[in-house]
């Protein structure tokens, strides 16, 4: 099991650490719902050192990434970040990633992948690299990654960085000094709030974490675990690999056509083109449920007496004060049906289709 450089700090803060994607990570420091509310109302600090991070550098870097990823790399100008899928030939999703184009170099990119897929992605990239003129480096264990999320994030981070955060737009990143050392900061996140992700040498992890906790104190900062992160991302309608995405799910049925640019050439394009022409067989919908029981992955979705689909993710949503889920259902399912239900073990909960995301920030 890999250990985050912040393990001691988490233990001291009373975190419950659990295995996640091969890492021992904080699930929670306080009740999960209180942590989720904290991020929605003020600001939270997340340890994301488990996320896989690859650097791709060289004259062939862009062409190589275009070969592997579904988004249009020519649109990812220097300093920009885009979401993309890594697909197999049949269009099934190997992983979902963020691609960062270096702010200062044409030929340098950074790819952030899911912890649980880091090894699989690395091997896949190695296999695909062939003649592309670029180098791949796994920087996961040499760089720390932490996130500040919530409406007060900019105020807190600005106290320890010289980078002008006001000038840093959403899904952009830039190098800057943090506590005097070199770091890179992106305006990204997985919570639906404004926020930042920060990448810097692992030796500075504790110092940076402590400084953010201290500067964040007047702004209400809490450390936040992976439990609340999952609740927040689901409220914000963001996919989680292993739930809304797997090798047996294609991006079009998962509602991610906006990240698939069929005019570019990438592995899986032909299959996805065909799926688009024929129309995907199923679709991902959001559900709001009645009752107190929490829908969970794999629970059947019923229309009348018939099982028509299954839950991908479910949680109690503190912002909506009710249970929510994402579910795969047939493409032609009438979303206005009033007889939809989710089978929750020995009971059934009434469900209504609701547009994704469940939550959108209003600032």
């Amino acid at each position, binding site marked *: 099991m890999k250990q985050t450089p912040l393990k001691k700090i988490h233990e001291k803060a009373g975190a419950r650490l659990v295995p996640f994607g091969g890492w021992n990570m904080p*699930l929670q420091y306080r009740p999960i*719902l209180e942590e989720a509310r904290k991020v929605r109302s003020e600001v939270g600090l997340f340890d994301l050192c488990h996320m896989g991070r690859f650097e791709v550098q060289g004259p062939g870097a862009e062409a190589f990434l275009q070969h592997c990823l579904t988004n249009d790399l020519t649109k990812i100008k220097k300093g920009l970040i885009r979401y993309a899928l890594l697909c197999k030939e049949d269009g099934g999703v190997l992983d979902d990633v963020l691609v960062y184009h270096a702010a200062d170099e044409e030929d340098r990119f950074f790819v952030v992948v899911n912890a649980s897929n880091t090894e699989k992605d690395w091997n896949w990239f190695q296999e695909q690299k062939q003649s592309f003129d670029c180098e791949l480096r796994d920087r996961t264990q040499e760089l720390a990654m932490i996130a500040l999320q919530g409406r007060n994030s900019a105020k807190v981070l600005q106290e320890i960085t010289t980078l002008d955060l006001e000038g840093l737009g959403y899904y952009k990143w830039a190098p800057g000094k943090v506590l005097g050392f070199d770091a890179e900061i992106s305006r990204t996140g997985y919570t639906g709030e404004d926020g930042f992700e920060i990448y810097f040498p692992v030796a500075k992890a504790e110092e940076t974490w402590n400084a953010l906790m201290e500067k964040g104190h007047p702004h209400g900062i809490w450390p936040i675990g992976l439990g609340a992160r999952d609740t927040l991302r689901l409220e914000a309608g963001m996919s989680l690999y292993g739930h809304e995405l797997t090798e047996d799910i294609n991006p079009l049925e998962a509602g991610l056509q906006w990240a698939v640019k069929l005019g570019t050439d990438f592995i899986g394009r032909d299959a996805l083109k065909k799926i688009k022409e024929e129309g995907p067989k199923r679709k991902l919908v959001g559900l709001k449920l009645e009752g107190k*029981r929490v829908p*969970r992955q794999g629970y059947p979705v019923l229309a009348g007496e018939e099982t028509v689909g299954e839950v991908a993710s479910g*949680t109690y949503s503190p912002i909506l004060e009710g249970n929510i889920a994402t579910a795969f259902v047939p493409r032609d399912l009438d979303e206005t049906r009033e007889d939809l239900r989710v089978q929750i073990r020995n009971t059934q909960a009434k469900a209504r289709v609701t547009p994704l995301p469940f939550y959108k920030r209003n600032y």
Partner: protein
Amino acid sequence: MAPTDRKYLKSHEWAKKNEDGSISVGITDVAVEHLSDLVFLDLPEVGKVLEKDQPFGEIESVKAVSELLSPVSGEVTKVHEDLADNLDLLSASPYEDGWMIQIKPSDETEWDQLLSAEEYEKIAHEE
């Protein structure tokens, strides 16, 4: 600390003998803390016949569902009906106000198979 006036299952249920011979059942503070963020509780109806170590209900938190196991065999004689709507009672007072059901035991010898507070504490803190 687990009170010494009762016995335990390693799955974190407690059992306490009442003066009338019935046995009250609940879950320990360790269980409540571990579950965190409780959202739902399903308890049996009065009259239901339970078997030792078999589920008598379910408790659900944001991240997990756990079965509640019966420490002894017997018939349910009383159910804490208001508890499901007051799950805070479980964290505020897991050993008193947070009781879940009362059972009329059918096999007195089962009591001796349960863990003492000391034995339970040892197991609970090894986890």
